[in-house]
């Protein structure tokens, strides 16, 4: 029995339409293109079309993965879909995707509601399914359309978030690939990144304006400075816990891929943790913060750029909405 799990292939999809810094600067003349770039490290974000939803983006990403001919659809025995923007509250979007992708009816399929930590949690679940002999080939999809939650007048969040989806194939193997994990949760931070009326709570609420703020209770609210404070506290602890758990020294890691929130936050964390610049992969410029897809998109780009070689150890760290966080160590095959 093959008792290990590894990532076999990653593909991703970004919607066609984009929002550039120039467009933002024209809309908000008090901000310059330079200021937006300096603040975020982002040049453009991709925006899902009005009729384009998570199931559509999921299918687009997955079809790109299957075009690689590394795995046939009939080989998939489990589908994990991580999203906070499901097509519907019910039914489960993973079920819709199973049908539209023409995956076997024998697959297990479920949605995971997590944001920036979601890819790492998805890897952990996939590893568990493989190690317990419940599945051999798992399709892990991360997909979000946060831009549909953003008030057009809210320039702060509009500069950061973009839409996108990533498809990752995790398969059983003889060699160790997905290794150690650490996890964390602190729901006290729930209020700092939230769409207040996105679920059942307050569903029948009539007035949804929020004082003078450029949003309603149906829109995304982000308290950026509080989230920054959370990352300063949690990420270094998680980083050191993971190194200890993996019995690994920082020098043994070839590539660090953290959730791509914004460049200011990432460079601060990199400096604080004394991670060499050439090993700390940043990939925000052309797609912004795509929530649960930032890590797999960055992994794909790091592979394409030759930053990761066979046998390399890689650290992944996701953190954000919830608050929720998780770190994983990979050995690349």
């Amino acid at each position, binding site marked *: 029995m093959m008792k290990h799990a590894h990532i076999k292939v990653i593909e991703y999809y970004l919607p066609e339409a984009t929002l550039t810094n120039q467009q933002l600067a024209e809309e908000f003349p008090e901000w310059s293109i330079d200021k937006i770039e300096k603040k975020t490290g982002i040049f453009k974000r991709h925006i899902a079309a009005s009729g384009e939803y998570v199931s559509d983006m999921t299918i687009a990403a997955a079809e790109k993965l299957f075009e690689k001919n590394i795995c046939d659809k009939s080989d998939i025995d489990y589908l994990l879909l991580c999203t906070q923007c499901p097509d519907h509250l019910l039914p489960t979007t993973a079920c819709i995707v199973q049908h539209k992708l023409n995956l076997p009816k024998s697959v297990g399929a479920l949605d995971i509601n997590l944001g920036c930590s979601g890819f790492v949690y998805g890897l952990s679940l996939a590893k568990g399914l493989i190690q317990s002999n419940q599945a051999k080939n798992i399709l892990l999809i991360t997909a979000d359309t946060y831009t549909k939650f953003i008030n057009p007048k809210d320039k702060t969040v509009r500069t950061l978030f973009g839409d996108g989806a990533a498809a990752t194939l995790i398969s059983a193997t003889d060699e160790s690939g997905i290794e150690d994990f650490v996890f964390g949760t602190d729901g006290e931070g729930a209020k700092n990144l939230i769409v207040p009326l996105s679920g059942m709570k307050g569903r029948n609420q009539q007035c949804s304006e929020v004082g003078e703020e450029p949003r309603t209770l149906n829109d995304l609210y982000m308290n950026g400075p509080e989230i*920054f404070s959370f990352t300063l506290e949690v990420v270094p602890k998680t980083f050191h816990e993971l190194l200890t758990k993996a019995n690994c020294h920082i020098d043994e890691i070839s590539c660090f891929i953290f959730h791509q929130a914004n460049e200011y936050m990432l460079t601060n964390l990199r400096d604080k943790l004394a991670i060499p610049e050439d090993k700390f992969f940043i990939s925000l410029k052309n797609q912004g913060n795509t929530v649960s897809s930032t890590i797999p998109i960055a992994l794909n780009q790091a592979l394409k750029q030759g930053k990761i070689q066979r046998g390399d150890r890689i650290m992944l760290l996701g953190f954000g909405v919830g608050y929720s966080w998780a770190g994983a160590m990979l050995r690349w095959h």
Partner: protein
Amino acid sequence: MQNTEFWTALANSLDVAPAALSVESALPGKGNWESLALMSCMSVINRHFNITVKACELDACSKVNDICLLIQQRTASN
């Protein structure tokens, strides 16, 4: 607060010349901080004293001296 390096970094985060910064210097005030300045200030404190202050704590500071007191309280309790 005799740490010159910290003082310079704090001045930079507040976008003022280090020589112009004193404990009596006024801060933007509650709800008036620019988010990048707030994050920059938190980062400077974290780097120099290895403590994490919350955005709401900094937001409540009206003078630079309040930041110094916040740091002293926090480092004393650690």
